[in-house]
């Protein structure tokens, strides 16, 4: 069997498993979720080592952004799954009597999850938790740019999860293209906008619904803050920019907007914070991840090739080709038409754009595609209201960064170019479910006017039905109300 035939056979096996009904039982789903918890618990050290060697992540970062996230997600799903699976019942107007209605969530079927390289564990296992809780069978396609993590998942998952229901398929672009030709009941993709379009176009061939978790340029608005607040804010900005994967995160801060007169104070505080977090020896930076590969490294370096941009560097700017590490770099007012201000940076370069009044930041943000996350550091309630009402983004976080990711009750997803759909917590369950409307009636109490042949009486009666005019209906039936001719 060649590779393509093997893949097809795997997917076919998943379809048969789904058809057998096994994945629908709450027992099966809970077993899988517990297995995921055991997997990360028993392999925590291996995962720490893997993420350190592949991406340079410190265990704290690995736990905070990957292992801890998966654990929290699986715990939540285990606790809530019965509630999520139960039908939502409700009342009906009297005209339907006797009847009952409910909305029943059901699995979609066989789903494809395409992960990303920057958070190779959480961005595969977290959607997987959603897909399993909802009762689907799954193909997981981890990113080939973090191949060791991909191999780890491919090797370890079959010994914890039901191998006939969850499969890992490794490979690069060719494998992804092949997988996209098949008919899926859902595709969940995390990655770039460019590939998101390709995924959706392929999905269109089979009318497959998609969730696309993409990216964009996530802005951080910086209003005037007191010194003590500024210190906290600077730490949060630094950890929101260089903390997650050295800026290679979809919700990492892309650029900052600040009033001219406040810019230098902010930059000074940021410099202090960077030195504290990462050290000031450019050749020996600590706690900072490397860039994933040479291609991305060169891409980031090319942002600074334009002298007009390079001249704006106010901190950092050194590139270590051997270790693929870029120093946390701050630029002040690079040209707005430079690539660094038009493309998603996805790296440790931080442009700061100044303006006369901070309120201008709203118009600035609106001139660009809707971002996945918008951050605003401000204590002005009015300004917060304006930001909420006048900008659009996947999410908004006031006075912090990244942390909205931990809130399971908040939907996590983009809008416009930053994505379609959402997940986390119950939203993960919903994203992999179909909400089926169910109406049950009885044979009693037939409303004759609903059947032909039509007459004025029936028309009048049904007008009253639609207005829920029960008194009118009764009067009409008793002959105490004459049918009008209109």
């Amino acid at each position: 069997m060649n590779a393509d035939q093997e893949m097809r056979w795997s997917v076919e096996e998943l379809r048969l498993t789904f058809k057998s009904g096994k994945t629908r039982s709450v027992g099966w789903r809970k077993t899988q979720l517990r297995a995921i918890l055991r997997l990360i618990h028993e392999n925590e050290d291996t995962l720490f080592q893997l993420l350190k060697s592949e991406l340079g992540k410190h265990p704290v970062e690995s736990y905070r952004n990957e292992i801890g996230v998966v654990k929290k997600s699986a715990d939540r799903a285990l606790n809530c799954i019965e509630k999520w699976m139960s039908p939502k019942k409700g009342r009906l107007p009297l005209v339907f009597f006797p009847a009952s209605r409910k909305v029943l969530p059901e699995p979609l079927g066989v789903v494809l999850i395409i992960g990303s390289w920057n958070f190779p564990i959480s961005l595969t296992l977290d959607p997987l938790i959603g897909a399993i809780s909802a009762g689907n069978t799954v193909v997981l396609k981890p990113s080939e740019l973090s191949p060791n993590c991909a191999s780890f998942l491919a090797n370890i998952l079959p010994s914890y999860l039901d191998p006939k229901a969850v499969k890992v398929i490794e490979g690069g672009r060719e494998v992804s293209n092949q997988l996209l030709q098949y008919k899926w009941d859902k595709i969940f993709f995390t990655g770039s906008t460019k590939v998101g379009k390709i995924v959706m176009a392929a999905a269109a061939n089979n009318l497959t619904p998609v969730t696309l978790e993409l990216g964009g340029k996530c802005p951080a608005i910086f209003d005037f803050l007191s010194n003590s607040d500024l210190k906290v804010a600077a730490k949060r900005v630094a950890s929101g920019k260089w903390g997650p994967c050295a800026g290679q995160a979809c919700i990492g801060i892309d650029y900052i907007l600040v009033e001219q007169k406040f810019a230098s104070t902010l930059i000074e505080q940021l410099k202090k914070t960077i030195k504290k977090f990462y050290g000031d020896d450019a050749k020996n930076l600590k706690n900072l991840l490397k860039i994933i590969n040479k291609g991305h490294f060169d891409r980031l370096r090319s942002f600074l090739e334009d002298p007009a941009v390079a001249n704006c560097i106010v901190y950092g700017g050194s590139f270590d080709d051997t270790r693929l590490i870029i120093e946390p770099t701050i630029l002040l007012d690079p040209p707005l038409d430079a690539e660094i201000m038009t493309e998603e940076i996805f790296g440790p370069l931080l442009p700061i754009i100044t303006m006369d009044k901070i309120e201008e930041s709203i118009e600035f943000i609106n001139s660009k595609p809707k971002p996945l996350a918008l951050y605003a550091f401000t204590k002005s309630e009015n300004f917060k209201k304006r930001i909420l009402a006048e900008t659009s983004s996947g999410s908004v976080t006031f006075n912090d960064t990244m942390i909205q990711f931990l809130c399971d009750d908040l939907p996590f997803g983009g809008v416009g170019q930053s994505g379609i759909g959402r997940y986390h917590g119950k939203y993960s369950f919903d994203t992999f479910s179909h909400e089926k409307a169910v109406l049950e009636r009885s044979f009693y109490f037939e409303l004759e006017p609903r059947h032909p042949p039509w007459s004025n009486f029936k028309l009048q009666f049904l007008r009253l039905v639609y207005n829920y005019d029960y008194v009118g209906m009764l009067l009409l039936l008793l002959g105490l109300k004459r049918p009008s001719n209109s």
Partner: protein
Amino acid sequence: MIKFYRRYPSITHRQHRSFSDLSSNSRFHLPIDIDYTMASEEQAKNSTAPATFDAEAADCLMKELRSTFLDGKTKSYEWRSSQLKSLLKMLEDSDKQICDALFSDLSKPEMEAYIHEIAMIKSSCKLALKKLKDWMKPEKTKTNLGTFPSSAEIVPEPLGVVLIISAWNYPLLLSVDPVIGAIAAGNAVVLKPSELAPAMSSLLAKLLGKYLDSSAIKVVEGAVPETSALLEQKWDKIFYTGNGRVARVVMAAAANNLTPVVLELGGKSPVLVDSNIDLTVTARRILSGKWGCNNGQACVAPDYIITTKQYAPVLIDSLKHNLVKFFGEDPMNSPDLSRVGHSRHFARLKKLLDDDKISGKIIHGGQTDKSNLKIAPTIVLDAPEDSLIMSEEIFGPLLPIVTVEKIEDGIEFINSRPKPLAAYLFTNTKQLKEEFVSNISAGGVVINDVTLHLMVDTLPFGGVGESGTGAYHGKFSFDAFSHKKAVLYRGFFGDAPARYPPYTPGKLRLLKALLDGSLFGIIRALFGFS
């Protein structure tokens, strides 16, 4: 893209262009059947369509709407509510014109026009008006220990400028119902009514232009070229009602701009009929749902029946008997039956009837009248699975009955086919009901009735798989056209040092406890225990 520049073909109710088979691998090339004819002079005179609506016109349209949206006008409660009120007034003032247009396009009886279109849309509008304030309110949500102290909420916001492409069979309902959702959610809207119901298309252009804010809500009439021009634009949402072939084209066009879509499609909605039922009530409900709904031309109309070999004769008898009661001995001349929508559709249905594979299996009806576009209510018994009538969505007055040995076999039969928009079961047996509801995947399921779930605005209406993606009606309409923005509020107090480098084992312990949400764990970690 090939650009078509030609006069909008004001089309008579009999001669239409319609979609032929989809051409493959084109970027998004809407299928086109080029045998159309220019309409009568009178219709051309009455047409409100512009001379051409090409890519340039679409660009201008989009610019205007985007500017309106960015001004912020459509976001206010006052604007949304005023538009909905005007819409309601429009419906109240225009009852007669609407009925006339529906009769002209589809020979729709006044009763059907009222109960399936006018009354439903008024109801939808009134609900939106009543609930709008509630729907617009942010929803407070919980936060956890990991983000303490914080507060969170979900804020609904409009998507922006949306495109609604409607269908011909319920040309008022399927155009205006999504528009209600789009307006309630605060968007600017373009409505593209179906050209296959030209009287209603024209009327909608006139009425919406008169009653609603035309700087934010526009109607673009036209057919394939106009739709293609619209699909080239960058929308914030596309809402399409129609068939699966065109839906693929719409979704492919949407993919270019990462535009989210709602696709309200169709499929073969089965009716499984047990023997443990009230026969008369069952037969009448099926008949009303099939022939009383635009003569079978409805996305949720019963497509085919499955029953046991043993019960089939009993059921068929009752169906025939009640058909006569509903539509008389001569249903071709009954005023209570809509005609077939247009000539191309008539030809398709005729082809299903003329299929060799079902010759000898037509047990009731089968008469056709091409000049009046009428087909009699027709029942076909045990058409082979590979016959045309059993392979494609019928969307017309033909009702195949499939017989099985045991009623449970019906469930497997249904599951071996693409997921339908609706699935119906008639039975008094509890176990069969439970099995049906759990094991049949469909957009919606109704037990002991048909199509009625559309009238329950607390139930989401939409398909799954081939029958569609997304849902609407009631609050689901508002949600379909909104983005639910997650908002987290934090202060500067309460900063966990464990978040920041330099990292230490102590910080790792604390972080684990924080993410676990365990207060005890946090205390232990703070005191240095793991």
